[in-house]
């Protein structure tokens, strides 16, 4: 636990954290793109691509699904290396032990995610693809959470005694707001998981797949309403409470975009939903399989979903920070924890 007198930690972890998050977001995109284009099984082997050790596979001269899938593998390796760099920089210049551990957890996460992706290929198992698709955004959210934690602002906010500092007087962060932020993040992530089921279950060949898909679709719609409500509420509270306004406002904008993308995704895959057909009547609309535009839209829906989760996590961390989460001295911690979890 750093006190105010601790020397400022190195800035490198923060830079690496940014680099990692910036590499992970395209990685999430690209992963979604692999699914959208059905490129997951471009190779049947892993750690090698068609028998060639991954880093030396002639990626730029490959085409189609092999280009897409190998690109995902390379980007995954990049994320892995950035995580290693982050952990190294943390151990060199970060005095807070829990942050170092956070880094190690990230490293474990990135390795697990890689192995999961590899197993999905080696075993050619839809269920693993689904899980891999759920844990990817989780890692992204965790990587994004590293950014505020290693930031200067985080440390600046750690001076609660300084009552005159602007953040202390104007911030309206309350345990209630923290609770809302956590709830939003959890709901958004749950929505992501259900979305992954909606996406992958049609390609499962088990007897229960139709049932799973149908339930997941209804659940996804229900959660969409819940997430939208919570995100808007959170944005509203943050904005008027002057707590991390930028991420909160971005969240509000993203949720609008996400709803649009969701409707488009359905249309790109299955045409007009049944109930909408009654209003629009006969249309000559038809989809084109393997169409780039539709693959991009479908992928964007998943990627924006992960961004929403990540931003909600960032908001939660920063709100938590502002209500003095790491200052057990200021109030009995059990009270605060009870306040957050109640």
């Amino acid at each position, binding site marked *: 636990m750093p006190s105010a007198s601790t020397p400022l930690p190195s800035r490198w972890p923060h830079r690496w954290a940014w680099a990692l998050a910036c590499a992970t977001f395209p990685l999430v995109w690209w992963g979604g793109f692999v699914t959208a284009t059905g490129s997951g*099984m471009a190779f049947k082997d892993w750690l090698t691509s068609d028998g060639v050790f991954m880093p030396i596979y002639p990626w730029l001269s490959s085409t189609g699904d092999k280009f897409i899938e190998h690109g995902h593998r390379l980007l995954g390796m990049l994320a892995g290396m950035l995580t290693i760099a982050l952990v190294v920089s943390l151990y060199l210049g970060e005095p807070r032990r829990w942050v170092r551990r956070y880094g190690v957890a990230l490293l474990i996460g990135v390795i697990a995610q890689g192995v999961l992706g590899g197993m999905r290929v080696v075993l050619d198992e839809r269920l693993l693809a689904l899980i891999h698709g759920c844990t990817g955004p989780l890692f992204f959210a965790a990587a994004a959470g590293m950014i505020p934690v290693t930031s200067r602002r985080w440390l600046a906010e750690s001076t609660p005694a300084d009552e005159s500092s602007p953040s202390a007087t104007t911030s309206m962060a309350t345990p209630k707001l923290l609770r809302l932020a956590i709830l939003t993040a959890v709901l958004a992530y749950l929505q992501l998981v259900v979305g992954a089921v909606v996406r992958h279950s049609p390609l499962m060949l088990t007897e229960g797949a139709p049932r799973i898909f149908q339930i997941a679709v209804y659940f996804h719609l229900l959660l969409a309403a819940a997430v939208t409500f919570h995100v808007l509420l959170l944005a509203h509270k943050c904005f008027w409470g002057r707590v991390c306004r930028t991420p909160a406002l971005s969240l509000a904008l993203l949720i609008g975009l996400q709803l649009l993308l969701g409707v488009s995704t359905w249309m790109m895959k299955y045409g007009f939903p049944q109930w909408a057909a009654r209003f629009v009547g006969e249309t000559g609309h038809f989809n084109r399989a393997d169409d780039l535009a539709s693959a991009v839209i479908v992928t964007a829906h998943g990627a924006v979903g992960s961004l929403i989760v990540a931003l909600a996590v960032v908001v939660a961390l920063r709100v938590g920070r502002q209500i003095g989460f790491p200052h057990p001295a200021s109030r009995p911690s059990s009270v605060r924890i009870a306040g957050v979890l109640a």
Partner: protein
Amino acid sequence: MRRRAAGRLIAVVAEATQYIQRHQNNSTIPDRAMKLTSRYSVLFTAATALVALVGCEQAPAPRFHLNPVVMVSNEISPEYQQEVANVLAAMFGTPDAPYALPESGLNQQRLTLAAGAAWSDKQGVDRGLYRKHCVHCHGINGDGRGPTARFLNPYPRDYRQGVFKFKTTFNPAKPTDADLRRVLNNGVPGTSMPSFSLLTESEVDALLEYVKYLSIRGEMETKLAQYVYDELGEAEKEDENGNPVLDEDGNPVMERPPFDPATNPEQGEVVKEILTEVMAPWQEASDQVIVPAEDGIPEDNRTPEEIGESVAKGRELFYGTKANCFTCHGPTGLGDGQQNDYDIWSKEQKAFQDATAQLQESIVSQQKEIARLGREGKETDEEEAKLAADEATLALRQPVAHSFYPIRNAIPRNLRKGVYRGGRRRLDLYCRVSAGIAGTPMPGVGAAAPGAQGTLSDEEIWNVVDYVLNLPYEPASNPQPALPWNSDQIAN
């Protein structure tokens, strides 16, 4: 092997967890919180790996399922069902390894390309195309019951009846390869059936071969079930002289002649015959193509007056009783005429459901009857035996009847939108009007077979086509020459 790997994985995870726990003393709140999360992240990873391994263990190789409607309505016993499945497997293989019988004329190479799990080989050739592009809608059996089907309108096509809507052949004929290729390339606009025009030609060829394969397999299944129902079944055992064999108590001995064409040459012949019967229409499809008479085809360079004249004639026919289009497509072409009919795919399910409901009613009345007889002190053995048999049948039918998705009416197209699912070329519409749309209530008004006489002449059909193409631009309030028979119903 996999189990051992799982065991090792769990051991490693447990060790890591312990390590983290050991280093967990004298910590502050955030410290503890972070550790907690890091511990949970490990646990989460472990749980993930476990779930994954469980999932791998459980996913069996996909296989074809028998058509429950066909099996139950033909009262095929479980033993015979297994034998029918065996025969089908011997003739057609499995979803992973389809087999093109030489007699079927299917192309083994194309089938292999289309079947199996989706992946791409070292040359970059995509394999498992059906499972990559189609299975989520059309299902592994080609029964149109893929996971997404419930939410689609119209439902994806069930290939197993071998009936296709958008083709250039006469109504009862099969589609040609070119027809299926056109559907795959264009999709079916206005439905969820996508266009596959971005696939390579060989991929589309492989897919259409696989559609035919599933179709032929489905038709074969139905015919085999009918054969088993008609010809086989538990019967009294007979000796060489045709006399019933009796057991010690003098009751006839029952036997079940197995359905096994591999060992029974007679059955082998029958199966071959059935296959020929199923295959023949497919092989003759190219002789069944509708060819409009050369001299009847309207020129491209007609004057507006000529077109107007043709449209007026077509209009007369459309609302006249000879072509009868308005009875379904409505007095204004909005598709608001007769809307309560079904296509053949719905009809099959509806008939099954209705028969099941009837059986249920009959069981209730039988129960009452038995109770009445019992009160009167009469013998009810015979009635009770029949009731038990009916109840057993109902128990088989009910789950099947409940498994259907909601049955929908076949709604005539709104012709004012200018949306044509089978293609917008004049020739496409000519084929639709001439042959009707197979499987749906829409009847053909042209010749029913090569050389036959149709309700409308070639020229009249072209007039109707001109009118249909003109309908979207015609004001809906134009007075109609003839009032439709059900105009009062429509008004209400």
